[in-house]
């Protein structure tokens, strides 16, 4: 009986929260907010906030054309694998106190798991046989390369700071990083972590492939690169993956740097004399809401504003930018963390 309940719980995690349903709703909502904000900043009216949902369902109803030159299996399977891998990553990212699975993968593994959705885009594009996709996947790979170095420097710095504080030397477990922040305040409050946080924020648009780091999908020159041949439901799945990735990256930032914030709610309720099952549930829902709001703010800061005020970088500029400016920031952080600041 207990086993069945356990299994059911895991199933709920995967399918509802923080799995598919949650990813689907919040991801597309974030995407909608982003589009609306960018439009407002550019003095356009912009689409309704729910537009990404309409787009997704519309695409699902369209005919899926598989080019004659394509490898059909890979072409159709790649989007699904990418989305599934992305949703599984979301399961490992704690929502403040709550973490669905905390003993499966730590943050360095997550860095590598994040390669799988990116690879699914590359594989899908390659399988289509289109030359536009060929150019696009080459750029996509360079974008991955660019983001990887700063991201891993940031993670190493965090591992060092938390590990030193916990006395284990190094610590990459996300739930422990969040626990540490609950006890000692957000990592953002530490001097050594500020450059790392800035670097991470700069990595977010690169990882999600948003403007100005969208050389890989540059619609105006290479027709969305790897997605050039996609249509119908598979294209919808890719669009959804892109939206979910925004959620993943921003919620990863929240977990890594703002982990302490959400716990305030429960304490607050406790001080107000509210406790017990119902209050706990309310606190939990509030925490999810706080997470969503934080993600929305981060999306605004790192994706919308940057999108509105910059023009697309060429791929070699993108690479140079990440390996010098952003990696430099992260390296400063790592060195500061090393000397215990």
């Amino acid at each position: 009986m207990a086993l069945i309940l356990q299994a059911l719980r895991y199933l709920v995690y995967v399918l509802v929260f923080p799995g598919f349903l949650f990813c689907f709703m919040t991801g597309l909502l974030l995407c909608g907010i982003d589009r609306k904000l960018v439009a407002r900043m550019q003095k356009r009216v912009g689409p309704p906030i729910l537009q990404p949902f309409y787009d997704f369902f519309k695409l699902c109803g369209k005919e899926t054309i598989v080019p004659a030159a394509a490898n059909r299996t890979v072409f159709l399977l790649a989007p699904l694998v990418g989305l599934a891998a992305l949703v599984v990553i979301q399961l490992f990212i704690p929502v403040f106190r709550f973490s669905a699975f905390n003993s499966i993968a730590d943050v360095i593994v997550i860095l590598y798991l994040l390669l799988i959705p990116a690879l699914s885009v590359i594989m899908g594009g390659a399988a289509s046989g289109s030359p536009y996709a060929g150019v696009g996947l080459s750029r996509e790979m360079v974008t991955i390369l660019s983001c990887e170095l700063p991201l891993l420097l940031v993670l190493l710095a965090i591992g060092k700071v938390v590990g030193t504080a916990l006395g284990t030397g190094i610590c990459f477990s996300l739930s422990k990083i969040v626990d540490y922040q609950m006890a000692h305040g957000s990592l953002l409050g530490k001097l050594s972590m500020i450059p790392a946080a800035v670097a991470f924020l700069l990595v977010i648009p690169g990882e999600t492939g948003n403007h100005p780091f969208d050389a890989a999908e540059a619609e105006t020159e290479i027709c969305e690169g790897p997605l050039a041949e996609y249509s119908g439901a598979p294209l919808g799945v890719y669009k959804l993956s892109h939206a979910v990735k925004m959620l993943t990256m921003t919620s990863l930032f929240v977990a890594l740097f703002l982990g302490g914030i959400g716990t305030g709610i429960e304490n607050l309720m406790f001080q107000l004399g509210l406790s017990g099952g119902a209050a706990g549930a309310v606190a939990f829902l509030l925490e999810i809401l706080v997470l969503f709001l934080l993600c929305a703010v981060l999306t605004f800061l790192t994706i919308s504003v940057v999108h509105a005020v910059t023009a697309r970088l060429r791929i070699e500029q993108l690479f140079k930018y990440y390996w010098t400016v952003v990696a430099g920031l992260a390296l400063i952080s790592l060195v500061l963390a090393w000397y215990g600041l």
Partner: protein
Amino acid sequence: MNMLSLQHFPIYSIMVLFLGAFLIVVFGRSKVVRHSVALLATCASMLFMMGLIKPVMLGGEIISYWMGARVPAGGYAIGIALEVDALSLFFGLLVSTVVFVACIYSIQYMSHDDNVPQYYTLFLMLAGGVMGMVLTGDLFNMFIMVEILTFAAVALTAFRNTVTGALEAAFKYLVVGSIGSTCILAGTIVLYAQMHTLNLGQLAALIPGNLTTSTKLAFALLFIGFCTKAFLVPFHPLAADAHGAAPASISVLISGVLTKSGIYGIIRLTYFLFQSMGLGTMQFWLVFLGSVSMFVCVTMALAQHDFKRLLAFHSISQIGYVLAAVGLSTALGISAGVYHAMNHTIFKGLLFLAAGAVLHETGTTDLGKLGGLSKKMPVTTVMFLVGAAAISGIPPFNGFASKWMIYQASYQKAVESNNIGFLAVTICALVTSTLTLASFVKVTQSVFFGQLPKEYENVKEVPFGMRLAMGILAALCIVTGLVPNYVTRFLTEPAAKAVYHVGAYINSAMGAGYAESVMQTVPVAAEPSFVQHGVWSPVSWLCLLMIALLALTVVATSAKYDKVSLGEATDTKYQLFYGGEKNFYSQVGSDDLFWGFKHNWRHYFSFMHELHSGVVNDYALWAVVALALATLYALVVL
């Protein structure tokens, strides 16, 4: 003594290979005979090695076998010994398994070649040489085995001597390989003159007390000798040439087996003979060399446009990982290093076999000429993708499991020793992994995806034997990646522990109490710590992914996802989008890719291009310079 007792297994597993080689010379004219002899010999060798798993790996025994029963007398070991501890057995297992798989593959792969009996003879000689080298307990015997394997490898490199560059590659290999062998011989001579013994156990007991200038010189000589066998920087250009020209089944052996013998030699030399486990200068030396090899070779690979040459450079890059991890000289580091050595053997073997399959069907390995083969060779494509994901360190394949341990080990070492230098190794390893991914994306796009050239329209999938060989290795890739706990517990941790048990090795060779009587301080076998700080459980992850994928597929099929419209190429709707222009053959692959990266590194790449002149004189000069540097380092710093 019972002929079937475990004591004899090491010698049997070497003997069957050499015996097979001679039998094929005599009776090899018949196809059936030579195939069955080769298969039987390699299979038997593998089984003998597997028979030793229980006592050696799990029981911690060390098996000494004295040829002709000439056991040491009067404190001197005159006879030739085979010494099999967990480290030797680990490498022995690797070697024999891959040799067996390569043998299965060879049967159909080599079916169109001339002089096939000679091929099998040399193949078995090479395998026997490597087996002998990793199992022997005698330094001079080790040199002989090194000679056998080097010359077999040289001959096999030039086996397809009609291929452009085969003879040149063999010649380069011969020249630099001979320099390496000569170094090993010279080092052996110097040690023998000093210690009057060649037995590894006895040497290990005597050397630490007599660290004279000559022994240090011997160290440098032997070290460089083993480096040439592992093709570490600066000997890496040889590997590229050799792999490019040799048949794929031989590339598997050269990359999977021969380089491992070099790594094995380095571990034996540094940690057993010279017992420099805790020595900072030695750690620096190994880790530095490993990191340089790791990084230089991965960038060299990015610049290649030949499938097999690209794999060759990756092979050294991965060996760099192994050396850097082993050089950390922590238990976790060594365990991670040998784990990666094993994984490298498996996935690189798989990749070379896939490259061989492409060569077998299309006749070329030029990335610029291929494309779109996934529709014609689906099985090979899947096998290749498994290997590519494994080498690029994509979870949950085996490459990730071991690289993951290497990252942790180097970071842990950096934190423990408070030395920021080791952190650079972690970063280098992480970046190299992504660069590896980039270069395999390049191969995937250039060979298997994209558009199919006209001339390959009639290409077929490779025959069953070749698919079987690839299938075995692909399955191993997945299994060893999914259960890292078992692999470390049963294979790599015993091997890593063996490195700590020098005293036991000495006593097993020379009789109990010898180490204590000769050495002032016997290295105490403290229980090494294999604590990992990382969290990664591949099986649970895979379960979650499967649930997610299943759920997604259910939703997708209940929607219209599977109602795709497929059509003929003649219908314009199903043609590729060309912006309204006329359709034409346009494969984006090979050198077209990763311009953004290469442009930023153009000065580095042009520098490397000029450096790798392809002239054997230059490479010989590099070898001499490397020897001079190693000697200087050994004499001044160590």
